């Protein structure tokens, strides 16, 4: 009986973890998936953008059955949704993994490209140029090289048997341009996250003229509006408005300056931006014991009377009294819907109504009992004496601290630099073989420009220069679209073309 031994070669099996990592890696490095991810993000951005327009309602008006869907559309805050955040996160992870995946190959192309080529490549290229020459390989290569170096190409050569192979390229480092661009995009996201976690923002920091307000947010700062100035054009459009402020830190004045639109003022971890402004009424409120419980400006205009939007309104809060005073000013545009002005307040008058603190502010004035104040005249309102001292202004500032700004600035340079390098310095390559044949020495050269019209055009400018240097014209393998190239149209009657 033969002694049979069975050689086993156990198939190397991968662990489930390796398989999973490999699948995840392929998912994130797939350009096809990247296209789908970006397309999905684009769709979310479109949905969120239209939410800020009347387009969804127009859709519902056209197809009433879609009204419930449109209502949900308007109600869905896309930008703060988990779906949006997850999509951004997936794209960010894909960028990182793609970068890690592509970097080694690109670095090899830059530092150590394959020089030798094959005749199959040269024959199969969409176009090529074959020169038949006399001379040594060194002389011919030198002529070819001179032209290439004149056009900023790097030239690498290799002897393969009796042949001289060469590889030439320019703008090789532009292959790296995609990395700073994509990483810059991630940095923008990082900057946004840093700002939202470690920064703060107050969109409506209101200060009446002559008043001081605390900034809060742990800054220890307060701001006094010394003066508000504005300039108007002849057609009633504001052309400038400026808040002259003093910043206090722990009660001490530390900085004074002006804040205007596009001209913020910074101190410490706070920057003040001019947003808007309005009218304020300076009131004093004295209780029945003669104690002053309120002496400050009430900004009018952040609210309006509910049944007359031309009447500015405000609220003076008296937390220690568990009360608030609703204040309504005169109609600012008496010619617009005069029938709505039921109060008929004159200049220098205000309508006020006392309410409990926290009660929903009824700024209609229509149901509540109110009292008309005349400027300078103390008037009894409930248990208090209220005096309308004078009219003033209030400024609405925005206050914020954004620690993500340095990250954003760095990312800007990366994004723009990456784009410029990628698009304006395309990587161009040619390969060639110089060999001896029965008719002399031939130099066969082809560009790496598959479906790249500009690459082939550049190749033909090199051919033009080689013709001058080598003193002869090559046989050209015509691309399918030969008439698109100036060189080929100019030389269409030349032998070999």
């Amino acid at each position, binding site marked *: 009986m033969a002694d049979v031994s069975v050689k086993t070669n156990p198939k190397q099996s991968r662990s489930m973890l390796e398989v999973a990592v490999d699948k995840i890696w392929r998912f994130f490095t797939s350009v096809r998936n990247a*296209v789908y991810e970006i397309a999905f993000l684009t769709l979310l951005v479109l949905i969120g953008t239209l939410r800020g*327009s009347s387009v969804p309602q127009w859709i519902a008006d056209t197809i009433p059955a879609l009204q419930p869907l449109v209502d949900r559309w308007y109600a869905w805050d896309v930008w703060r949704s988990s779906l949006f955040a997850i999509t951004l996160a997936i794209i960010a992870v894909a960028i990182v993994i793609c970068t890690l995946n592509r970097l080694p190959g690109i670095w090899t192309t830059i530092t150590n490209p394959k020089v030798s080529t094959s005749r199959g490549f040269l024959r199969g290229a969409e176009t090529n140029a074959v020169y038949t020459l006399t001379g040594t390989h060194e002389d011919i290569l030198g002529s070819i090289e001179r032209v290439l170096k004149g056009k900023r190409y790097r030239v690498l050569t290799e002897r393969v048997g009796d042949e001289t192979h060469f590889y030439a390229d320019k703008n090789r480092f532009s292959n790296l341009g995609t990395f700073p661009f994509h990483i810059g995009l991630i940095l923008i996201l990082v900057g946004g996250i840093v700002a939202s976690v470690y920064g703060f923002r107050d969109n409506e920091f209101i200060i009446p003229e002559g008043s001081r307000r605390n900034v809060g947010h742990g800054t220890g700062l307060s701001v006094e509006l010394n003066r508000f100035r504005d300039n108007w054009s002849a057609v009633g459009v504001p052309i400038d408005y400026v808040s002259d402020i003093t910043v206090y830190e722990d009660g001490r004045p530390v900085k004074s300056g002006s804040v205007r639109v596009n001209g913020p003022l910074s101190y410490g971890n706070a920057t003040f931006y001019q947003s808007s402004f309005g009218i304020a009424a300076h009131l004093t409120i004295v209780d029945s014991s003669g104690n002053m419980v309120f002496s400050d400006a009430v900004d009018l205009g952040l609210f309006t009377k509910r049944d007359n939007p031309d009447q500015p309104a405000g609220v003076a809060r008296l937390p220690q009294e568990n009360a608030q005073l609703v204040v309504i000013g005169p109609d600012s545009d008496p010619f617009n819907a005069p029938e709505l002005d039921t109060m008929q307040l004159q200049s220098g008058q205000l309508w006020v109504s006392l309410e409990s603190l926290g009660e929903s502010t009824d700024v209609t004035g229509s149901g509540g009992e109110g009292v008309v104040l005349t400027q300078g005249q103390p008037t009894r309102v409930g248990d208090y004496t209220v005096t309308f001292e004078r009219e003033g202004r209030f400024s609405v500032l925005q206050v914020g601290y954004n620690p993500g700004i340095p990250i954003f600035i760095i990312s800007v340079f990366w994004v723009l630099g990456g784009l410029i390098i990628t698009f304006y310095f395309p990587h161009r390559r040619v390969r060639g073989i110089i060999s001896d044949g029965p008719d002399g020495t031939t130099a066969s050269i082809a560009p790496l420009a598959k479906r790249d019209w500009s690459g082939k055009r550049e190749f033909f400018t090199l051919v033009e220069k080689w013709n001058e240097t080598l003193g002869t014209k090559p046989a050209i393998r015509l691309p399918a679209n030969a008439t698109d190239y100036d060189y080929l149209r100019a030389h269409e009657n030349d032998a070999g073309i």
Partner: protein
Amino acid sequence: MDGLVRFSFYAFAASSMAIIAAAIAYVVFGVGRVRVLRQTLATSTGHTVTSSQLHQEAGPIGFARWGLMLTWFGMFFAGVAIVTRWIAAGHFPISNMYEYSLVFLFSITLMYIVFERAYGVRQLGAIVMPIAAGMTLYIWSLDPNMREVNPLIPALQAGWIMPFHVGSFNLAYATFAVAFAAAILFLVAERTNAKWLPSAEMLDDVAFRAVSVGFPLFTLGLILGSVWAHDAWGVYWQWDPKETAALFTWLVYGVYLHTRTLRGWRGRRSAYVLLFGFAATAFTYYGNYFFGGLHAYGGV
């Protein structure tokens, strides 16, 4: 109107006439002409047989040359209109849709001339110049009060940032119009193999080059807008509808750039993405008409 403002308007009127005439010339050239080739054959029975063949070819080259010359005039007069209005207003004129569209007229004619010189594809004019002509008609339809120069509202008093922010977008939109035209011609060339059109490969290259110019410009516009937003409002992105519409357009062209490296997507599908991209561009351009938000001070 102030004398200089009136002069600016007349320069715009001259520009619009030149651009409309250029559009007509390019369309005549681009549509081409149909020649009927007739062949008569004598048969062995003594009868004759006549066959007619329709043969399409490019229009007379003279129309394209006229079109280019008129485009140069259109660009020059639009430039005069902008400069004179700039002097009259004391600021770069992009504070309302009249001024913004006037600058776009200059941009689109400039970009068209650049690409025609670079590639020699005159048929692009048959699409780009009608877009420019449409823009001139849009400008004529605007409220005449927009032709008056008014002081800038405080939000638009931003020094150098405003012209560079708006100008970057303007130039980007113009190059996207060229890419749109190239995409249409690509689809025609690919389907019909028309001999009077350049190859689909060349047109694909034109479209890609246009986007490779426009996309960085568009990105610059977004970045400058963020810088300006930070100076004005303390935050560099507020999810304002005009901002997100611009982001939407930017992402569409981002999709396009990725599809060009994807097997099966390069070529026809990429061209369709460009058509959609131009629709997105128009959506962003005219967004002020239906968006509220922080950019709603364009005088629309």
